[in-house]
């Protein structure tokens, strides 16, 4: 995937946003914008240009699962890749995210290697579909 791919990282903890941003930078992706919950993420998505969303689940305001559903139900964003990075690890939740159309699911705490592997897989699938 193009190293200029524009990422939106959504997490209520600034530390976690920074960690994800650094890991993306290590993988060569430097075009990253941030939001602290679904409510602040939606206008950024609406403005256009975002090509990849990495989101937490548990956030005050609008949660990650609600954001995912909103992304899938809006035609202009419906096919965006959405990677969920969350501490929520119940099987029902993973199934719920899958049914809502999540592209990948990472359980916190995670390693740089896991993030790379999931990103690569999603990108491969996107390229295969294109």
């Amino acid at each position, binding site marked *: 995937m193009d190293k200029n791919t524009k990422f939106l990282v959504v997490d209520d903890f600034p530390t976690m946003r920074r960690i994800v941003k650094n890991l993306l930078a290590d993988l060569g992706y430097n075009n990253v914008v941030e939001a602290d919950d679904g409510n602040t993420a939606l206008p950024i998505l609406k403005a256009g240009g975002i090509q990849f969303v990495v989101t937490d689940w*548990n956030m005050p305001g609008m949660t990650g699962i609600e954001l995912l559903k909103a992304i899938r139900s809006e035609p202009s964003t419906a096919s965006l890749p959405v990677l969920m990075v969350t501490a*929520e*690890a119940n*099987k029902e*939740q*993973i*199934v719920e995210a*899958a049914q809502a159309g999540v592209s*990948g699911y990472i359980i916190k705490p995670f390693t740089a290697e896991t993030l790379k592997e999931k990103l690569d897989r999603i990108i491969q699938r996107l390229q295969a579909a294109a």
Partner: protein
Amino acid sequence: MNHAELAQRLEQLHLAASAQCWPEVERGMQELEEARCRPFAQAVRRMAMDLQAEMQALQLDSRLARVAAEIPDARSRLDAVIQLTEDAATQTLDLVEDSRNYVMRLQELVGQGANWQEVGAIAAALRRNLTELSAAQAYQDLSGQIIRRVIGLVGTMEQTLGELMNLAGIEPLESEAPAKGELMGPVAGRQDKHNAASQADADDLLSDLGL
């Protein structure tokens, strides 16, 4: 009040009502009501006194008061843990980002042919950052001490509440399954690990679902 007395009172009330003496009827009704409730009120009062006496015997009352008094302190200490860990994470990330810039510069220098003086300066800066990174881990000791204190308080609370419930004859509940839609947070340390998935479980689950 026995049944004969009750019948007599009702008869009087009936007469008063026939004569349309409403204030007398009201008063009579009220007396009847009070007479009927008295034994119940007395029983409740006696139970409350018994409970208080038993609590005093077990020193539950003073222990509860002490636990309640310590809760605000525990809350503010836990807030401090959040702050300590956040500060440490921020400091660590600052140092890592700074070090990353040095390493990138080193990689550039390798490509260009080494400038040994600059390489030496970068090595010194990286070494300084590593020392700072090490020092930043002190938060673990501090937050560990605070959390241990709060665990102690929660333990006392659990014991005191348990004795209080025992005294009141309340059966302890098995911990309930979470309500639907309730978020569980991190698995680490959770007593009920039912249904918790590892990354490998999550991967398997998603690939079963065609992802």
